[in-house]
């Protein structure tokens, strides 16, 4: 090899001389006829949200059957009620999705939401400050809480699970210390800061009651969908969740990005806090005790991968709706609501199994 003059080195190795006559396509394989399961796997790989959509449509159809709910389910009133019931968990699930897309998890969203709502209530009612000041302070708490989580994750390099488990307790204790575990009553809110309850107001369309909170939830999802799919920020969220090291090498400042994601999640939690005041009417330090897990449930059922980087932000909206539809449908069918809990449990396992399956997709 070494005595070959330089000019002829371009020709490559001897054993490769036959390559010039070989097929010119690079690794293009003949497309084999795909089986049904293979086709399904590919379709789901491209659209992981299809599963929750199908489950949602199927459950709405089943509960609409006259022999199941005697027509009580499929009314404008009931459907709008389901929307109202899922609106707070829906918005929280949107915040949760941002964190889970980066391959993290946030156990503190529920506590942070109450913390933020309590601060809004205390400053607006007990301290008698103008509503907009109360809102600003509430949002500062929510975004600040997200920032604290983000700082521990990126600067101290702790796993998000541990950080948010810790801040969950911390947020809960602070808000209980602040309120002395007392609720802020609805009539006090009406008298001092009615603007905080704005998202409880509604528009009537026939028998349907569309609350501002429901519209807000849809807006939150629409804006996040745009950010995640149409902006570089969104693409980077997915890249980090997919493979953080690769994202860093490819030129993303991953820690700075993660901080913005945690703060954005905090902002969305603040929105949920404001909406929750309108939804509940009062502010109770003990409300939404299960909101953390419910938000994770909605995300998982919605087809967002717990391992990060995959899934559509619209999935958790459907996930939250599935939970709401099951609850309403089973109640109207006269069945024990525990069956909803039973069904949701199975849905979570099914959703993660499907996620694992579609990850194995190949060309």
């Amino acid at each position, binding site marked *: 090899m070494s005595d070959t003059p330089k000019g002829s080195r371009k020709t490559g190795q001897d054993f490769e001389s036959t390559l010039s006559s070989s097929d010119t396509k690079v690794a293009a394989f003949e497309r084999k006829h795909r089986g049904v399961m293979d086709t399904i796997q590919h379709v789901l790989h491209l659209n992981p949200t299809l599963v929750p959509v199908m489950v949602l449509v199927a459950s709405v159809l089943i509960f609409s059957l006259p022999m199941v709910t005697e027509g009580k389910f499929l009314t404008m009133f009931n459907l709008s009620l389901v929307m109202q019931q899922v609106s707070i968990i829906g918005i929280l699930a949107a915040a949760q999705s941002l964190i889970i897309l980066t391959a993290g998890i946030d156990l503190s969203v529920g506590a942070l939401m109450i913390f933020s709502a309590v601060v809004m209530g205390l400053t607006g009612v007990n301290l008698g400050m103008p509503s907009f000041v109360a809102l600003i302070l509430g949002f500062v708490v929510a975004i600040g809480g997200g920032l604290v989580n983000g700082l521990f994750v990126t600067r101290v390099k702790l796993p998000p699970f541990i950080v948010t488990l810790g801040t969950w307790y911390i947020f809960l204790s602070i808000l209980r210390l602040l309120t002395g575990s007392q609720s802020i009553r609805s009539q006090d809110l009406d008298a001092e800061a009615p603007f905080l309850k704005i998202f409880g107001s509604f528009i009537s369309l026939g028998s349907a009651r569309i609350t501002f909170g429901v519209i807000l939830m849809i807006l939150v999802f629409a804006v996040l969908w745009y950010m995640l799919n149409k902006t570089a920020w969104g693409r980077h969220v997915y890249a980090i969740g997919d493979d953080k090291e690769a994202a860093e*090498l490819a030129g993303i400042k991953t820690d700075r990005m993660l901080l913005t994601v945690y703060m954005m999640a905090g902002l969305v939690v603040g929105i949920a806090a404001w909406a929750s005041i309108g939804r509940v009417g009062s502010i109770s330090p003990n409300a939404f005790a299960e909101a953390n897990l419910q938000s994770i449930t909605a995300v998982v059922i919605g087809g967002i991968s717990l391992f990060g980087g995959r899934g559509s932000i619209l999935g958790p909206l459907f996930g939250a709706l599935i939970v709401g539809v099951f609850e309403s449908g089973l109640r109207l069918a006269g069945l024990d609501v525990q069956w909803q809990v039973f069904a949701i449990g199975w849905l979570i396992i099914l959703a993660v199994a499907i996620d694992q399956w579609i990850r194995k997709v*190949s060309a």
Partner: protein
Amino acid sequence: MTQAPILKARGLVKRYGRVTALDNADFDLYPGEILAVIGDNGAGKSSLIKALSGAVQVDEGSIELEGKPITFSSPLGARNAGIETVYQTLALSPALSIVDNMFVGREIRKPGFMGKYLKMLDKKAMEEFAREKLSELGLMTIQNINQAVETLSGGQRQGVSVARAAAFGSKVIILDEPTAALGVKESRKVLELIQDVRSRGIPIVLISHNMPHVFEVADRIHVHRLGRRLCVVNPDDYTMSDAVAFMTGAKEPPAEAMSAA
């Protein structure tokens, strides 16, 4: 070599605890050349490359690009300076599409209000550019540019990663073991890509264990040993077994190769 080196490093030192990965390493890359970097496992090739590409910050030493001293705090810094790297791990996001991967961190936004205030990406412009670059490099057997990278074969992924570097690397392209995971035909394709990139005047640093590949494309060979540059040899003057002997310490390199270093 009468020209000044385009990328030059002197006295690089990098320690990890008690392990010294780079021990006063020097490095020179001249304009328009393919410089191969070879060395035994643990010789510090990867650390050298990471130092040059901004993925690792050295403890001591200086790096100059076109005669100007530079320090990179991240891979992004090196990239902005015109140094593109294809890592052995490829640094691709498997679930993202080919286009998204090519443009990670340098996305094109729509002109006007949508782009400026709503930060909307110009998908069409990015797709066009990516398609153009991939076909320039003969990689257009990839049918769908919006396909997720994880659905591509190993060679195709390598191609996407090399195409990304070639498309944006304005001054230097560093390739870390680009043929290690590839078959004969795909390796050939990548070697052709490398020569193609050089013919456009962009110098290339090629890290490889594959001696036939190194001797085929390299203009000069930098032998790395025990954390520093041992010597630089011309592939026309030495055999592959000489090179292996130098890098494993079985044979002392001749004095003139050492002084050239």
